[in-house]
């Protein structure tokens, strides 16, 4: 197993197996990211493929100042954003609604939800909701950053997130997973 810096250098020198090694190291984690952003598995495959091509193409610009995984992740997320922007209709500016927060959920009851079911919940969200939810809640982007990335207003980003939360909450409760509220 190569060190990250060494692996990058080997990839840049086009050494055999270096690219594959690189891919094998990060692909599962990135595929998880893609699965969350995509509306189905085929789209997830496309994002992963396109994203890694972009990663290998821009590897020379990696400065070794942050973590390599973080850099790859941002590239994959950017690829998902580009795909979203290409396909998405204009997101409507809607008012901000305060999300209801499910309090005191216990893992014991949540354990019943499989990852497939969680993914299904997220994938059933409208594309805009799903994108903002992923970017803000999972990836940690601020609404200002999301607004720049998606070319929408901050208020739109906030309202999309609020609606995403509401929708997820309804789905979870409606699915009778046995949460205590």
């Amino acid at each position: 197993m190569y060190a990250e810096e060494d692996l990058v250098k080997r990839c840049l020198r086009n050494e055999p197996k270096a690219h594959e090694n690189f891919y094998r190291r990060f692909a599962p984690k990135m595929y998880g990211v893609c699965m969350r952003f995509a509306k189905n598995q085929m789209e997830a495959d496309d994002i992963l493929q396109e994203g890694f091509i972009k990663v290998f193409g821009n590897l020379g610009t990696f400065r070794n100042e942050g973590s390599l995984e973080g850099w790859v992740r941002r590239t994959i997320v950017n690829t998902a954003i580009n795909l979203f922007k290409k396909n998405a209709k204009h997101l409507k500016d809607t008012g901000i609604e305060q999300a209801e927060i499910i309090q005191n959920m216990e893992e014991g009851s949540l354990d019943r939800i499989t990852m497939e079911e969680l993914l299904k919940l997220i994938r059933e969200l409208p594309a805009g909701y799903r994108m903002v939810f992923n970017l803000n809640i999972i990836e940690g982007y601020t609404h200002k950053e999301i607004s720049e990335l998606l070319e929408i207003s901050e208020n739109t980003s906030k309202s999309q997130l609020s609606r995403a939360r509401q929708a997820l909450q309804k789905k979870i409760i409606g699915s009778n997973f046995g949460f205590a509220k």
Partner: protein
Amino acid sequence: MSKRYSNMDDFFRDRFRNFEPEPPDYIWENIWRKISGNGPDHPGRHFKKGGIAGITTILILVGFITIYQFTNNAKNTQVTGITENEVIAFNDISGESSNHTVVESPANPVFSSPVKPNKKEIKKANSSSLVLGMEKAIPEGIVGLSNNLSDEISNLTADNSVVTAEEGNTGNAKFETVLSDLINPINKGITLNSNSGLVVPGTIGRRLGEGTQFLADAGDRSRLRDDYGKPGSWLLGLYFTPEMLYNPSVRNLNTRNYSLDVNAVYRYSGYLVQSGLGLMWSSDNGNCTVDYNQYLGSYEDVYNITFDTVDGEVVPTYYTETVKVYDTLTHVTISPAKNKYTYLNIPLLFGYGGEGRHFGWFFKAGPSLSVLVNKNVSEINEANNPNRIINIETEVPSRIETNLQLMMSGGMSLRLGKNLSFSIEPVFRYYVKSTYRPNGNNSRNPYSLGLRAGLLVNF
């Protein structure tokens, strides 16, 4: 063991933290094919094939035209071998040639010349005169001149007879009159091209009917001959070309080229060679994503203290350094990036074209070399930026210094004056290699489409 979540967000974060499904194997195979350039769906390959097919087509076309030209020349030169029994020679079509021509009656339509024209006369006929070898066909071109006249000729030549020049033979007066009438309108309407050696072996009608070198206006013909007909003419052209560059490797990259070229064009019998110098201004417009940690402030960190005794008192000396404090969260910002490049263009084009009275047509193809002479690349000014930049990801890759293109264009020209013409031509450039520095995925060959407008001066 029970874990409580304060809200739904934590629940999702926690569950997805270690979500690492194994992707299907074919994804890596596709990625490898793309980055190694061996993909079956590599768009550049199609363009390579398209480029080769285009060039082959042009070469075949040029070859065909060349063969056609030589074939025509060969036909014309055969006239030198035609015997006096086979031709009617109008040695001086603008003079009184009809007086020298006597033909027999239609009843005995084979004529012979009792007086052999000497070689000089034959040569003259080939180079500057209309030579007619009348076979059975009715000259359609003459029909255009005089229906009655052509009808009469039709009657006279309907029996596959060969009409030849015969000096000193007194033949049928009717046919003599017909020929005289035939020549007169030609005298009025036709000026022969002495440079191109227009002769009409075989059927006059076929030749004149084709109309390829027939001009009703003698004055126009003379003028066109001066400008275009003479071999080895030079033109100087000033061209302006706006183009859109498409790069299959780089998405969302909006590239425009503007070229200003001064080219010399050498024309010889329709063929042309074009070369010169030009400047091409090109710009790549895209976005630049910057990940950074925000600068929050600074403090002085004491890294050493020494104590000295001054006048019996202990005085501490603090050694400090400024430590900048950054937000631990990574922020991202997207800003537009525009890279500008200036290239020196050196094209070498070969082509073929034709000219009419007002319009001309042409097509050209050949290599064009572009050398980078200046660039203005957008860069993040890190020195004046207090924030700590972690990563810069740009959609706008940097370019290489030299690139070679294969250019193809075809268009038309419009005469604006005796020595001035305007041309317009769609231009296709296929870049033999990428304009950008190779870094894995941008190895595909770009191509551009543009419209070239030019002003040409004839010399």
